[in-house]
């Protein structure tokens, strides 16, 4: 019987919710088509994480454990996955769409001669392969695509499916792995992370996004205050990441991250298509902009027309009141 294999992304020692979403989708498909749903964890502490994963019930959890996987680096990861594919021989290998999985998808596909579909928002199995939907043209439209190959690699946008708990007594199987430093071919010298406490944007329930309208320290303070009242992740438009005001990892949009929170509040953001490409799937969209014709109002559920410096203080105050009740 053939296998649907889900790669489990790990960040800071935690399983990323978005990969649980993908696993849940694979569980569902496996059930429908009478296939095996399996997962693979590649990490320095894969065994520990495998136990947690049982709550999401793949039939088999493969693990590859090695200190080299402490940080993301593409060479060992491609090697490990290639090994796993040889051993497991899955029909599908699905990833959550992250900077990590996007880094290796093409190379792995060339390595295995497999078809690959990146950043899909929906996928299903056909008799011969996979059918999927992908947003294209800066997410203005959707393309329906098909890949018919014995192995299809897919990355799935976060928020495309729900993560559904499904406890099972998954079998855990380790795949032996070693790599010499020389085979890494490159050296990871350091990782520069933004300071401050981090809420993973792509998984946040509430996202506050700041744009060029946020002009100064005072504006940023208001953003911080709002985010802390709502326990929200802070993101930004390219205008502000480019200017170095916010860390580039906080950019939301075509170049940056895709978010799909319950609540997105865009502040001083015009709503260029490349930004919208990264947030249009938010459940409730609020926009604060002083220009009544700003394109973001075309997609906002609540469009507040006004100067953010005048809007935010009473907005924050009212939210605090609501929170304290």
């Amino acid at each position: 019987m053939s296998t649907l294999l889900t790669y489990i992304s790990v960040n800071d020692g935690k399983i990323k919710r978005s990969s649980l979403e993908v696993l849940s989708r694979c569980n569902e498909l496996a059930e429908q088509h009478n296939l095996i749903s399996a997962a693979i964890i590649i990490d320095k502490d894969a065994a520990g994480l495998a136990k947690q994963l049982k709550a999401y019930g793949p039939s088999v959890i493969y693990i590859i454990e090695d200190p080299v996987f402490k940080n993301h680096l593409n060479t060992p990861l491609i090697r490990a996955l290639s090994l796993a594919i040889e051993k497991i021989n899955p029909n599908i290998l699905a990833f959550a769409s992250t900077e990590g999985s996007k880094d290796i998808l093409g190379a792995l596909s060339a390595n295995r001669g497999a078809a690959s579909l990146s950043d899909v928002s929906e996928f299903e199995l056909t008799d011969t392969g996979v059918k999927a939907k992908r947003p294209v043209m800066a997410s203005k439209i959707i393309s329906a695509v098909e890949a018919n190959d014995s192995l299809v690699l897919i990355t799935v946008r976060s928020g495309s499916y729900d993560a559904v708990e499904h406890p099972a007594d998954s079998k855990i199987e380790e795949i032996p792995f070693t790599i010499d430093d020389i085979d890494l071919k490159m050296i990871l010298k350091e990782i520069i992370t933004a300071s401050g406490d981090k809420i993973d944007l792509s998984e946040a329930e509430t996202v506050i996004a700041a744009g060029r309208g946020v002009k100064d320290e005072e504006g940023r303070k208001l953003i911080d205050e709002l985010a802390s009242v709502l326990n929200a992740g802070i993101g930004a438009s390219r205008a502000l990441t480019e200017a170095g005001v916010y860390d580039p990892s906080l950019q939301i949009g075509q170049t940056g991250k895709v978010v799909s929170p319950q609540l997105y509040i865009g502040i001083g953001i015009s709503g260029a298509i490349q930004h919208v490409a990264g947030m249009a799937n938010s459940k409730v969209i609020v926009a604060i902009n002083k220009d009544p014709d700003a394109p973001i109002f075309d997609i906002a559920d609540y469009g507040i027309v006004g100067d953010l410096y005048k809007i935010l203080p009473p907005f924050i105050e009212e939210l605090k009141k609501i929170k304290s009740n």
Partner: protein
Amino acid sequence: MKIYVCIKQVPDVNAPLQIKDGALIQDADRNILNAYDASAVEAALVLQEKHGGEIEVVLIGNDKARETIRKALAMGADSGVFIQEQIDTLYDSYSYASLLAAFFKDKEYDYIFCGKQSQDTDAGLTGSMLAELLGLPFVTNAVWLEYSGNSLTVKRQGDTGQEVIELPSPGLVTCSNDMNDPRIPNLKGIMQSKRKPVETISVNELGADRLAVKTTILGYEEKPAREPGKKYEGEPDEIARQVARLLDEAENVI
């Protein structure tokens, strides 16, 4: 140092588009140099200004796409290769990567730069596919570069921060537009571009006779429309509080 930059012509996503019976209809004339590739060209130019060397751009495309090579030459690249594609096949990232691999097979270079993705499809596959096919180490989603005399130091935007990687040569880098602001060609550049050499090769000459297409586009559809909601205009204090309460009471997202 010899740098090749792979560039692609893509439809301008800002141009109006229309879907008719599942087919995408666009203004055939609104094509541009992929923004991420423009950043790759810019990155190569900056390196060249500091360290010397030669920059050659490579583009696979139909006849109309040739003008995009001129654009890169006008920015400052030294020469171009135009790989003329057959018009009747729909290429995907895999097929472009295979053709590029066939082209690079017997070439010598220090680095190949690609864009991190095509602006129209956002596939983001060709660069790393090409690297794997050529057996090159690679870094994707680069936001910063520096050359030390024998290797490149590249910062890539990763999930948890910027990963600083030392990439030996030969190697491949895919560039984000967050890396730089590509220069707009000046008049001299535009004028000089006309005299720079552009070699034309047909896809068949590359010996990649059987084209490796792995994915098929079945059609296009509209995105489910998002109804614009309500606009609140007026006294800042009032509308701010009003929306805050609605987010709690009507939407339950606070």
